[in-house]
């Protein structure tokens, strides 16, 4: 599709939000009582923030919820009956005001969930998702989008990308059919561009990701991993807040005769993640798990999925209880 650019005034933006919110689920960022930035369904427009840097959790749960039921079962005397989940019940969702890194992360997730066999849950959720992204006019020391081939105004993953203008209005880039269909339904709210300049933050490039990827090839046994992961306590925080981490666990939960099989987020940082039934664990120490985290994102994924596994959002680092700073480590890795 040919992309196009329009202008949407501040008042019209509010109208657009309210009209979308009246007819569908809109997932938008708000600042909660405890000052954490979280996405909520259909908050009032006044509550929606345009001033956040990063939400505590990413928005990946729209396509890859922390818990997804895969099927239900009921155990009879001799046989069980299985009921599939009706994927058509998955609602249409408009993701509002998510930043370019988070939107690009949907592509990274797609490279995993639609790698060879399509994951029907993920694909259905993506099909029902419309992304109205928001370029960044704020950033902090944890941001490093520019080191992983992105920028504060990358359009990757967005259907419409809003960018703030100096006078408080917004530029709207219409990037996909889904985006165009929203703009067409509310065409009275969009105008021709005014030539006003976009306000963008600058994010300093910290490393060259291609250099990192080439250094990682052959760095498996490097002492770097032990030296730089001693303080990692092996929790799941980094993977759970990360917009591109896709690992999950599958469990059955039965109450009486009935039960369900579900999947829920998992992390390669946990000590039991690769524990075999034999008792052998190929990643039996934390350094091996930390190495996996970096290798997966910067070596295995580029190699096998033609996508980096990191969008530079910085959440894993700002959320890590012991300041494992991934950008700092990648910067060091390009020079080992």
């Amino acid at each position, binding site marked *: 599709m040919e992309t196009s650019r329009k202008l949407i005034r501040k008042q019209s933006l509010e109208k657009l939000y309210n009209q979308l919110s009246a007819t569908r689920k809109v997932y938008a960022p708000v600042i909660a009582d405890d000052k954490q930035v979280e996405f909520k369904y259909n908050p009032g427009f006044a509550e929606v923030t345009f001033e956040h840097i990063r939400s*505590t*959790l990413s928005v990946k749960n729209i396509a890859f919820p922390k818990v997804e039921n895969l099927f239900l079962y009921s155990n009879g005397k001799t046989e069980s009956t299985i009921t599939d989940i009706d994927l058509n019940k998955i609602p249409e969702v408009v993701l509002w005001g998510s930043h370019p890194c988070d939107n690009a992360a949907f592509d990274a997730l797609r490279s995993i969930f639609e790698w060879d066999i399509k994951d029907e849950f993920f694909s259905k959720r993506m099909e029902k998702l419309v992304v109205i992204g928001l370029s960044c006019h704020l950033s902090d020391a944890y941001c490093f989008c520019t080191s992983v081939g992105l920028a504060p105004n990358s359009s990757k993953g967005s259907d419409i990308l809003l960018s703030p203008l100096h006078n408080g209005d917004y530029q709207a880039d219409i990037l996909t059919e889904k985006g165009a269909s929203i703009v067409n339904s509310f065409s009275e709210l969009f105008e021709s561009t005014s030539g006003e300049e976009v306000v963008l933050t600058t994010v300093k490039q910290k490393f060259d990701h291609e250099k990192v990827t080439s250094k990682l090839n052959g760095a498996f046994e490097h002492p770097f991993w032990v030296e730089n992961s*001693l303080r990692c306590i092996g929790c799941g*925080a980094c993977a759970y807040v990360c917009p591109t981490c896709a690992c999950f666990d599958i*469990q059955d939960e039965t109450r009486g005769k009935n039960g369900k099989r579900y999947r829920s987020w998992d992390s390669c940082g946990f000590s039991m993640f690769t524990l075999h039934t034999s008792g052998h664990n190929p990643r039996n*120490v*934390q350094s091996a798990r930390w190495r996996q985290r970096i290798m997966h994102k910067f070596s295995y994924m580029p190699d096998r999925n033609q996508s980096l596994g990191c969008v530079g959002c910085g959440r894993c680092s700002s959320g890590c209880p*012991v*300041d494992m*700073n991934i950008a700092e480590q990648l910067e060091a890795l390009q020079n080992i």
Partner: protein
Amino acid sequence: MNNLIARAKELLENKIVQVIVGYEAGPTGVARPAFITNPAKADLLIYDERCVQNLAVYLTKPEVRNLGKMAIVATLPVMRSIMMLISEQQIFADNIIVLGVSSDGSLLDIADIKVMQAYIEKSDLGNPVKDRALLVELNKLSKEERFAYWQKELSKCIKCYACRQACPLCYCTRCTVEVNQPQWIPVQSNTHGNMEWHILRAMHLAGRCISCGECGRACPVGIPCHLLTMQLADEVHNYFKVYAGTSEKMSSVLSTFEPNDKESFII
């Protein structure tokens, strides 16, 4: 702090220890754990109000232990954690040198465990002042309101287990939540399952929690889960008049029976 650096250098140069576990400043200015093995790098060590993490969690980590004998920068909560770990036979007192620091940052002379015990005994062992105030507020609520408060807080939990991993006393190599035959606690994160997880965690730490607050600090979504274990530390003190981590021979309150125990809470 200069004393700390000088002492660290001396310990490494004379090969009395192989590693110093302390704090350094990260690239964003946040203080974080550091593992210094080379005396020339001892200058990286810092100690100031940013240094809040409970370093005792590293005493039981295999790859840190592999480095050899260690000296550890220890505030009061770290010292109390060390006491607990000795009393629970997780570490040997002889294998660690305690670089005690007082709340104003000066280096203490902790020659051995007896000296450490004396220092702990003369310190304020109640919960930290700001947490005490939060608990007072919570305890003013009715049972129903308090339940609603925790339901709301715990519904945010994503079961990343950072609270568990950050706690020096959650050292089990296989946590109950990882046992799935039978599965005691649901793996999925939902309000009900999250509450079960937190009740379990609190009960496993009752009488063992040394009130460092690390679990709450570690939580990426800001759940004050340390208040649960701190409340139990208060309860244990009310019933049994003991504080955790005060002696190397302490037996765990909840796994010890004494004929003269008060049993007023047993219905």
